[in-house]
């Protein structure tokens, strides 16, 4: 029944696999894309561009150490109806964002959504391509077969579906204005910083306004407040009123480990998760920069992120 016989061993494998010594998804150990966000030209908080209007695609890319120069090749096309994890284009690409040589910037693509006639009834766009760290992107002439000239571990193939404004209904990217992060046991607030990627990863104790935490225990608790109340109410196609259901993705670097990668944001006022510190011996005596990355998705195509750095001293 529904492949239960195949799922059963798969579940066993997964359960056992939870105990396996593999890199957890919440640990940043290589250059990673953590999210894709769409901002309309009129209002960057709106994630659903309308046909014929301009918008910007932004990618959140983080690094375990100092930033690496990035290049990318990203193509946008009308999306076909989804029926699984492998989305397909309903037509040829209408925009390609190409950065052939690595630069010190996160990928962005400015584009104009085709009008309704050109969309052919599609109610979403599909973006697909590759982001390369310290190498150059490859893309076939028909915008397929993306790749990088560098090693495989520096290549991120990605895809994202962009919902379009439909019958005047817009979706806003999640608001993180009231977000507050705090290390509970140390009672240290850890505010977000826009320049977190550029901060020095060693000797961070001298960085202005950077919280300092002394590693006095093996684990600490991270408390995240201010997410639940910001969720949007919206009306589904069947007319029912709904409230967004958010998913919070959490990541950390410098060898620290988080209890989990995903949290459901429901009516609870706070999310807590355990943070396991790296061994003191790997920490810089003058402090090692630890960055806690949060990415919030509203389940309707809206995405927001923030990075909360602090200096960890042995």
């Amino acid at each position, binding site marked *: 029944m529904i*492949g239960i016989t195949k799922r*059963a*061993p798969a579940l066993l494998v*997964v359960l056992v696999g939870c105990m396996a010594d593999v890199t*957890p998804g919440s640990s940043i150990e290589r250059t990673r894309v953590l999210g894709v966000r769409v901002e309309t030209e009129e209002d960057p908080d709106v994630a659903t561009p309308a046909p014929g209007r301009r918008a910007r695609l932004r990618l959140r890319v983080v690094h375990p150490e100092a930033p690496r120069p990035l290049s990318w090749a990203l193509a946008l096309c009308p999306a076909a109806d989804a*029926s699984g*994890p492998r989305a397909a284009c309903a037509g040829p690409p209408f925009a390609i964002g190409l950065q052939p040589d690595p630069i010190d910037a996160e990928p962005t693509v400015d584009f104009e959504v085709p009008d309704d006639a050109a969309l052919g009834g599609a109610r979403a766009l599909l973006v697909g391509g590759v982001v390369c760290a310290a190498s150059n992107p490859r893309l076939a002439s028909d915008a397929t077969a993306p790749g990088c000239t560098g090693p495989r571990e520096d290549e991120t193939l990605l895809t994202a579906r962009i919902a379009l404004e439909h019958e005047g209904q817009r979706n806003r990217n999640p608001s993180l204005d009231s977000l507050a992060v705090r290390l509970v046991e140390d009672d240290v607030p850890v505010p977000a910083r826009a320049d977190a990627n550029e901060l020095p990863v060693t000797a961070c104790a001298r960085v202005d306004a950077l919280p300092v935490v002394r590693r006095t225990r093996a684990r600490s608790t991270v408390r995240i407040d201010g997410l639940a109340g910001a969720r949007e109410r919206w009306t589904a196609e069947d007319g029912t009123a709904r409230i967004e259901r958010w998913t919070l993705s959490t990541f950390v670097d410098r060898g620290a480990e988080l209890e*989990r990668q*995903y949290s459901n944001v429901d009516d609870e006022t706070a999310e807590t998760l355990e943070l396991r510190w790296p061994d003191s011996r790997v920490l810089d005596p003058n402090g090692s920069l630890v960055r806690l990355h949060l990415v919030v998705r509203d389940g309707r195509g809206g995405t927001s992120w923030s990075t909360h750095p602090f200096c960890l001293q042995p």
Partner: protein
Amino acid sequence: MLGLALVLVSGAAGPHAARSQQAAAPELVPPRLARFAEAEMPPGVNPQDLPRSVELELVVAPDGSVREARVVQSGGEAFDAAALTAAQELRFEPATRDGRPIAARIRFRYVFELRQAPPPNQVPAAAADGSSGAQTESSSVSAAPPEPDAAAVPEPPPPETRLEEEDAEAFGARARVRAPPREAVRRTLGAEEIVRVPGTRGDALRVVELLPGVARPPFGAGVLLVRGAAPSDSQVYFEGAPVPLLYHFGGLTSFVPSRLLDRIDFFPGNFSVRYGRKLGGVLEVSARDPATDGASAVLDVNLIDASALVQTPIGAQAGLAVAARRSYVDFFFENVVPGELFDVVAAPVYWDYQLVGAWRPAAGQRLRLLAYGSSDAFRVVFDEPAFDDPAASGNLDLVTAFHRVQLEWSRRLLPTVDQELTLTAGPTRLDFGLGEAIAFRLRTWLLQARSEWRVRLSPTVRLLAGLDMQWLPFTVRYVGPPVMQGEGSGRAQDPLATMERVQSLGEGSVYRPACYLESDLRPTRSLQLVLGLRLDWFDEIRSWAYDPRLVAIWSGLEATRIKAALGVFSQPPEFQESAPQLGNPALLPLRALHVGLGVERDVAEGIDVGAELFFKSLSRRVVDTPPGSWPRLDNAGVGRIAGLELSARVRPTGRRWFGLFSYTLSRSERRDRPGQGWRLFDFDQPHILSAAAVYRLGYGWEVGATFRLVSGNPQTPITGAVYDANADVYVPVYGAINSARAATFHRLDVRVEKQWSWDARALAVYLDVQNVYNATNPEGSFYNYDFSERYDVPGLPILPSIGVRGEL
């Protein structure tokens, strides 16, 4: 990890108590018929006077000859004389005690049913059944051609077999001889295989995995994989009614205790038209009749579960057996598994129960009432998403439960016509949930009526006719990804978070009537032809299926049977595949053509070997339609399976050991759509080798070993991954489906037992060690979040189990 088993047996001393002893401590082996001798029909017999039976008491000498014969129940002077004359020509494998041949006194019945003498090839060849699973083959042999399935013919229970030594011990084994199988391949398991084979922990149904043609299921799957067929293509029957479960929790232990079993028949292909709606193989599990000669009770307590079996006679012609079992896995789960991992709502629990009542109101009649059921339940709740998949939050639950009440009535309508009627009813519950991504809730009732008539038209022509009606009212709720091709999709690692979700809530009923007719023809003395036709109606897809089948068996050479078989088999699509809201109600029944050619030979006393060639052509497999098409499923898939099975059973007379050997060479391929290439089946295992041997050292010591060497299952390699920014997961990029293969599985299991006996009491201590040399045997692969790291999940590690078994 150590397991401790304690078996306590109590009850009335006497024949039946000894029967229990025989099942548990088979040191005493009754005689086994090695050569049958026909009885001449007395001249001038009036057909109206038939049938007649003569019951003899024979003393079988240690050399297997009949030393003495006397009539204990007369069938008339002429018949008595004919039976006594023929009995002198009978030859047996002698009874043994601790492997040493001894004399035995048995009862043996000749039944004179027809005027013409039977062909010489009517010698019973199949391994016998027997209460307690005893390996007995004696008595009740017909002078006429034996019944196609003598076990199904109601007859008064023959008396017990007794050994004639200083301390004569009662076997209590009800001895019946089963006729030569009409199926091309029929494998029947006996007591030695059931109880003593290492690595099975005495579980009868686990021994099935050692038979030729049976592939090794992945650890924890607990499915039946027969001759390259998908798990859903084979069916387990309990007393003729399909059951949805073979093992508790995917292989822990079977759903019915071994002590309640009468026999297990396994048909890997080309099975009779009595069975339908399946393409693969059939496993028929039969319950024994309760004892009518004394009450007894068995209590079995070990670290995993506890069970009890109580039997009692009710008058002289009826008996009742009640058994129940419950696991305590929940206790360990709640106290051992870390609580912070998830909240346990319902820890793993399984239980089962059985009730068997039998009544023989008159000669030739038998009424049986069975009630049985089984439940496996497990549920945990994850507060937050787990498994690197944001959709995997909520609950993880699995419930499989069924209950059945069954009434069987066997009777002889006319001297040449027997009827067996079976009515079965009971609910089935299947729940499977994984977070909010998948929820499957099925409630269904099985209502089945089955009636069979066996007609002996002449000595050379027999007919079997039957009606097989199934009605399955159901309610179902489904939330999850669209129903897709189950086998060969190659998408096992897809994250749930990226899948489209569909919902369906419905109720209805499925009506599947069928009728069948089978003729058993013997055009010459050495040729048997079984022609069958089965007609099925699958109401849910409004479709008929016509399945003609043919088996030819030639016994022209001494001790050799050459078999050829050809047949068509049909199977309705899986429920979810044809459900209007989920699948495609216009699907057609799946079809398979089975072709078989085989030979069986008794190469020496106690040694029989066999070889089977088989080929199966599959058509109308349910597969995915091209992306974007609607409906998502159609019948465009085909398949082909070919193989060779070699088997040997060695039970040398008078020796202290026995052995089983099987080897299967096969290849199972599928093609999913026209124009595509052939690929390997998900569970294609080209080489399957099993060898088991048990040796009695003497002084109560016994050692045994089982070795298995099996090709690893095909795997679909992962060549990369694409980051899905909407779901924050990586979607794997697959290579060619099933183009890689897991490592070869190999395992050695060893069992050592020491037994002490005092009269009817016995105490045994045993050590059963699975995977003695701790082979890794990876069962699957686990990947990290972006599929750049792979971790092979090891299989069952070395697992010693120490047990104590006592019998009173």
